[in-house]
């Protein structure tokens, strides 16, 4: 994490990017550093649209009291032009003990202002989304490390696969794993145990194996999931979602960017590559048959069949036939 390795106490910190977790951390790092330097440091937070040139002058004029002050301006892209000019002027000629943190969500708005600030030599922290699975894996590893634990590549990857690419979820999972791990070592078994409590995860595993054509494994996972108390309805939901997503992917026009595709399908961008892999071996007709098989299982389970294991196993077998047929 860049924000953690650079001494954050500089006159102007520019935080740019859409990943709010990283942006928040960059802001917090400055505040923490200011408080470390001066415990009674004065911290104010405003949003760009409510900032006026007069208000900024009030904040940034030299203080009579030698108190460190931190001013965080969120959504700095929305500041009026006059404020923008004043910010650039401040960057060129900072005031002692005054620290500005300017938060910009990325994108083109107020790009000129960003350029001018960069030219003035402000310190920039990037808060980009981590869309690649590899980056998410390193994120997990560094999180666990910062929480005082250790985790190997395989276990970190397993965690990313289980909870997806949302950094907040990953961060809280990592810190919990690190604190729960005996002697701080987080291994694959612990990751597995940790997620046993999340009933939907098992449904997803069944669904993934099923659409990949690994029917034997899917049936094993199914039995295990149901034995350990997973609601059959959750498994059906996962199967329906997995097939629906593949069906939508199969019908997507060629040449669409992965990011747009991900938004359209409602999945994180890193999932697209996995989905493409899963889609191999399917025809549209096969997907249609598979969806109908899951709908029959749903009706059987809702209609109160005695044996939902049987209804779901039947669905898995039919999905297999639909895939190979």
């Amino acid at each position, binding site marked *: 994490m860049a924000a953690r390795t650079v001494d954050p106490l500089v006159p102007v910190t520019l935080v740019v990017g859409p990943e709010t977790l990283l942006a928040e951390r960059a802001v917090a790092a400055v505040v923490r550093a200011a408080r470390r330097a001066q415990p009674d440091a004065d911290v104010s937070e405003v949003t760009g649209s409510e900032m006026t040139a007069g208000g900024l002058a009030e904040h940034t004029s030299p203080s009579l009291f030698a108190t460190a002050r931190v001013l965080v301006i969120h959504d700095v892209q929305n500041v009026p032009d006059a404020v923008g000019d004043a910010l650039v002027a401040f960057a060129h000629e900072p005031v002692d003990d005054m620290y500005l943190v300017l938060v910009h969500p990325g994108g083109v708005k107020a790009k000129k202002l960003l350029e001018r600030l960069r030219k003035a030599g402000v310190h920039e922290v990037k808060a980009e989304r981590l869309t690649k699975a590899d980056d998410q894996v390193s994120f997990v590893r560094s999180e666990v490390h910062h929480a005082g634990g250790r985790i190997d590549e395989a276990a970190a990857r397993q965690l990313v696969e289980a909870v997806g690419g949302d950094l907040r979820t990953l961060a809280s999972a990592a810190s919990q794993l690190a604190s729960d791990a005996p002697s701080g070592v987080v291994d694959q078994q612990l990751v597995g145990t940790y997620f046993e409590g999340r009933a939907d995860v098992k449904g997803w595993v069944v669904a993934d194996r099923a659409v990949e054509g690994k029917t034997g494994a899917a049936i094993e996972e199914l039995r295990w999931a149901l034995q350990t108390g997973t609601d059959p309805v959750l498994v*059906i939901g996962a199967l329906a979602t997995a097939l629906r997503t593949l*069906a939508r992917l199969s019908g997507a026009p060629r040449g669409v960017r992965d990011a747009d595709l991900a938004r359209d399908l409602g999945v994180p961008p890193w999932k697209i590559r996995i989905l493409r892999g899963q889609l191999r071996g399917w025809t*549209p007709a096969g997907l*249609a048959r598979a969806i109908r098989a*899951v709908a029959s299982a*749903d009706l059987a389970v*809702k209609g109160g069949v005695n044996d939902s294991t049987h209804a779901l196993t039947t669905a898995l077998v039919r999905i297999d036939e639909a895939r190979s047929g």
Partner: protein
Amino acid sequence: MNGASDAAGMADMVGTAGMTSTTSASNANRGNGTSVWDAVVGQPIVPALQQTVADASASLDGAPSGSMTHAWLFTGPPGSGRSVAAKAFAAALQCDSGGCGTCAECTDVRNGTHPDVAALVTEGLSIKISQVRELVPKAALRPARGRWQIVIVEDADRLGEDAADALLLSVEEPPDRTVWMLCAPTAEDIAPTIRSRCRVVQLRTPPSDAVATYLSTTEGIDKRTATFAARAAQGHIGRARALATDENARSRREEVLKLPFALDDLRQCLDAAASLVDAAKADAERHCDALDAREVDELKRALGAESTGRKPRNMDAAVKELEREQKLRRTRVQRDSIDRALIDVLALYRDVLMLQLGVRTELINDEMRASLDRLARNSRAESTLRRMEAIGQAREALMANAAPLLTLESMALTLREG
């Protein structure tokens, strides 16, 4: 009055919202020579009920009671006008001239202000035992002004077991002048103990020409619109009124009827299913959002009424319970909305089937005959039948609480295949 239950079994349809209120509003415009029975559309049972009213009137002067009895059950498919019929019957019983529609008795019953006619209407998923307990003492009173003390329970199918028990005693042995009128889709929806005490009035789905005439004569809707709406609503009066008066309802229906024409590939099928679910969700929001908020407010006010600004201890639990019920209601509203859409699609395929079989009959969707012709030419009667079956199965599955999106996706894919 045995004729009432014998007239059974000729029905098949759905939904009922807004019916009572609109009826009372429109009745205000009536000219002379009308009666409370005009609002009971297309029901051959009416003369039998009129005979009962005459018998009841005679019994007040000491004659035998004839077909009059103390507990009635109005059944019939949604939209057939169960509660409207019950109200008309109530007014006719109170009126000196069998339901003239203009005297004070008739007017007050219609407006819901008659002191001797109480109606239990519920927006909830079930009728609470407390609601029944409020009614039962009322039913024991002698009529203050009218001839009878009448209690109407709309949606009696929503009586829970306790509530039904609380009602039972009063229905079993009512005071002399008390009349209970329960309304429910079918007699089977009522606990057998209560059902066995009631005389059943079975309503049918009114024929569309009767609905059209009703809309144009009593609600002032122009003939063409009335005819279209009655035909499209397939005899569901409330739905016909909505289609005749509400632009939004008409365009919703038009959207739905595009579905059979946009099932070219997998993605379109999934989109069609998703848009049905989305539209139903929007319907549920329109219907439930404000209502939910108001109910929570009312509950909080009721619980907090005695306390002095402090939150009563049982408040959270009570609010939670209410919210649970509201969620169920939302699910039901959503399901009903999907069902209404499916009925429209089903009717479209029925039209296609008629064309394929060369049956000369009025099409429900006559205004889209050209597209229907195309659909008819491009497939065979057997696949139309299979499609209709798929829609029927989807409706049943949804009533059995199957996952809406998945069910509709499966249906759309079957429709595509034919």
